[in-house]
C-alpha cells in the first residue's frame, strides 16, 4: 500500500518549493503533492522533484478538488480567507500547518480547531515560520531569567519572498497597522505613529524599520516570561550586500536578563542566511511537517494547537540551519 502524500498548497511558490526540496532531502521517496490553482504550474514544479505529483487545488471545494484521496498532512503557503484547507484537514483528521496569518487574524483558525479538535493545527506564522523564535529559545538557554527580547529582521529588497509573501505583508499592514508588543509585562498594540523604529543591521548600519507582529511575540511571552518583547523589520540592503556581496537575510536577537552566575547580561546575535529568507522558512516548515506527519519516527502528536517551538527543538533547528549555510554570530552590544 502506498503512503498517503503530504500536500503542499502553494508548493510552486518560492518557500513551498524549497520546503518540498527540504523534505525530499530528508525523506527521499516520500510522496508529495504539489498543489496550486494552476495545474500546469504545479505539475511543472512536481516534475523537478522526485516522487512529487502536481494537483489542482480548489480552496472553495470541501475536498479541495482532491476527491477522497487521503493525505498525511497539509501545509499551506498562501493566505486563505475561507480557511478551506484547514476545514479540509480537520474533516479528515489530518495535521495542518499554515504560515501566513497575522497575529490579529488568528481567531478563525483557533475557532476552527475548537469547533473540531480532530488533528494537530500548527500556528506557524512566526517570523520565517519559527526561525526567529527557535533561535531565540536556543540562545535563551544561557539565561536563568529573561527580561527583554528585541528581535529585528532585515529583509533584503532583492530577496523576493514571492507574491504570497508580498500579499501577506500588504494585507497585514493595511488591515491592521498596529503590531502587538509586550511592554513591562502587558500587551500593547504599537503603531508607527508612537515612535520611529530603527533597526541596526548585523554590520551596525541603522535602517529605518517598522513594528511587525507575527506570532513571535505571544509565543516568546508564553515560553520565556520576559516582560518586554518586540519585533521590528527593516527592508533594504542587507549587511552582506552593503559589503559588496550577494544579499542575505538577517535576524538580530537582543536578549537581556540574568545568567547562571546571577550576573545581568545583554547579548546580541545575528542569524544570517546567505541565500535569503526562503531557505530558513522552508527548513522550519519542513521540520514541523516531519514532526506532525511522524516522518521523524517519533509518535506523531495528538490533536491540539501547536506553535513551531512546540514541535521542533531549538537545537535541531539551529543545527540544521547552520548545516544549510546559515551562521549565528555574536555581536557587540551597547550601541
Amino acid at each position, binding site marked *: 500500500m502506498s503512503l498517503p502524500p503530504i500536500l503542499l498548497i502553494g508548493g510552486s511558490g518560492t518557500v513551498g518549493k524549497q520546503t518540498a526540496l527540504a523534505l525530499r532531502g530528508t525523506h527521499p521517496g516520500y510522496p508529495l503533492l504539489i498543489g496550486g490553482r494552476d495545474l500546469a504550474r504545479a505539475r511543472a514544479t512536481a516534475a523537478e522533484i522526485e516522487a512529487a505529483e502536481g494537483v489542482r487545488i480548489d480552496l472553495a471545494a470541501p475536498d479541495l478538488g482532491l476527491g477522497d484521496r487521503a493525505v498525511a498532512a497539509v501545509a499551506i503557503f498562501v493566505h486563505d480567507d*475561507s480557511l478551506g484547507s484547514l476545514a479540509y484537514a480537520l474533516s479528515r483528521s489530518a495535521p495542518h500547518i499554515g504560515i501566513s496569518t497575522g497575529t*490579529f487574524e488568528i481567531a*478563525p483558525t483557533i*475557532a476552527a480547531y475548537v469547533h473540531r*479538535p480532530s488533528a494537530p493545527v500548527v500556528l506557524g506564522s512566526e517570523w520565517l515560520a519559527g526561525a526567529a523564535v527557535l533561535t531565540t529559545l536556543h540562545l535563551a538557554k544561557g539565561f536563568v531569567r529573561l527580561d527583554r527580547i528585541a528581535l529585528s529582521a532585515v529583509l533584503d529588497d532583492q530577496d523576493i519572498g514571492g507574491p504570497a509573501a508580498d500579499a501577506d505583508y500588504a494585507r497585514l499592514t493595511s488591515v491592521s497597522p498596529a503590531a502587538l508588543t509586550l511592554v513591562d509585562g502587558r500587551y500593547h498594540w504599537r503603531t508607527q505613529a508612537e515612535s520611529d523604529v530603527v533597526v541596526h543591521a548585523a554590520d551596525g548600519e541603522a535602517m529605518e524599520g517598522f513594528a511587525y507582529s507575527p506570532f513571535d511575540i*505571544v509565543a516568546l*511571552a508564553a515560553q520565556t516570561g520576559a516582560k518586554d518583547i518586540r519585533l521590528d523589520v527593516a527592508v533594504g540592503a542587507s549587511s552582506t550586500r552593503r559589503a559588496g556581496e550577494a544579499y542575505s537575510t538577517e535576524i538580530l536577537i537582543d536578549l537581556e536578563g540574568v545568567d547562571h552566575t546571577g550576573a545581568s547580561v545583554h547579548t546580541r546575535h545575528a542569524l544570517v542566511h546567505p541565500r535569503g529568507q526562503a531557505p530558513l522558512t522552508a527548513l522550519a516548515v519542513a521540520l514541523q511537517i516531519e514532526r506532525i506527519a511522524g516522518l521523524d519516527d517519533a509518535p506523531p502528536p495528538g490533536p*491540539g494547537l501547536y506553535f513551531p517551538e512546540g514541535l521542533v527543538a531549538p537545537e535541531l533547528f539551529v543545527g540544521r540551519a547552520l548545516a544549510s549555510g546559515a551562521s549565528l554570530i555574536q555581536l557587540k552590544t551597547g550601541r
Partner: protein
Amino acid sequence: MTDPVLLLGGTGVMGAATAGLLRAAHPDLPLLIAARDLDRAGGLASTLGNARAVRADIDLLDLGLPASVRFSAMAVLVRDLGYNSVRLAQARGVPVVLISEAAFELAPIAALYARRPAASAILMMGHSHGGLPMLLAASRLPEYRSVRAIRVGVIFDPDDPLPPGAQVDMDRIAGAGPPPLALRQGRWSWLRGPEATDHVLTSSLGVRLPAEAYGLPDILSLARWAPGADITLLGAEGATGRGPDGRPAHEVTIEIEGEDLSGRPSTRRWRLIDPEGNAMLGARGIALALKALAGVTKAPPVPGLYFPEDLVKPRDAVSRLALWGLDLREETLQP
C-alpha cells in the same frame, strides 16, 4: 468542602452583578471576591454571604495570592493585559474564563494554552454580553435548512452606559484594533468604511438606529453552525423600551435569513429586552458559563480551549433566561 469560585475584579460592576446572580442561584457555592481594594472586596463579600475577600493584583505573577488561597475556577473580570491570571489558573490546574478579548486579541491566550494544553480549561468569552446574544441566535438556527445571513444586534440606551471596564475594552478595540471581523459568504472579512458603519438596527420603539459592526468572538461561534453565511454583530445606541420602573433597558435583536425547513425563503427577527440593562445581561451570561466551568451541577470541562457554546447549550440558555423572566419574542417584519 468545595473550593470557592474566584471572581478577579469582583468588586466592579460586572463582578458584583455576577456574584449576586451566582449567590442567588447557588446559595451553597462559596465565592472569593478578589480585588485590589480589600475593603471594597470585604464589603461585597459580607453583603453576599458565603463569600470571602482577598487582595489580588494582576501585575504580580501569582496575582499576589498565597498558595493557601484555593479556588475551583476563576473568572477574569478585569482586563489582564499580561495574562498572569491565565498563568495562575494553569499553575493551579483550574478552569478560567476571560471576558474582554475581541476576536483579534486571542493570540496570547492560544500561546499560553499551546504551551500547557493539559493544565486548564480556558473559556474565551469576549463575546457580547457573556455570549447570550450569540446563544439566542444559535437557538433559532435549527428552524432553518440553510442560513444565508445572521445579524445579531445589541442596542444600548444612552442612560444605560457600559460598565467602565467594558468601555475600556471597547475603546481599546476601536483604537488599536483592526476593522471589525465578520463572515461574508464563508470568507473571514475585515469590514471597512461603510461596510462597518452602514447598518441599521430597529429598536422596540420602532426607531431605526444607525448601527456599526463589532469584531467580537460572537462571529466565530456562530460560524460553527453557518460556515457559509454572512454573519455580523452590530451595535447601536438609542432609546430602548423602559421597564415598569422607568429604568433604561437593553435590547438584543436576532435576524436570520435563509430557507426554512420546508425550503421556503424565510427572514425573521426576534428581540430580547433585559429591563435591568446591559451590565446585568452580561452578568447573566458570565454566571451561566461560570456555573458550567466550575462544575456546579455537572462535571467541569476537561482542560482545553473553549467558546461559550461548548459549555452552555443554546436551548439551555433560552430556558435559563425564561426563569429570569426574559423571553426572545418574534416580531413581524414589514415586507
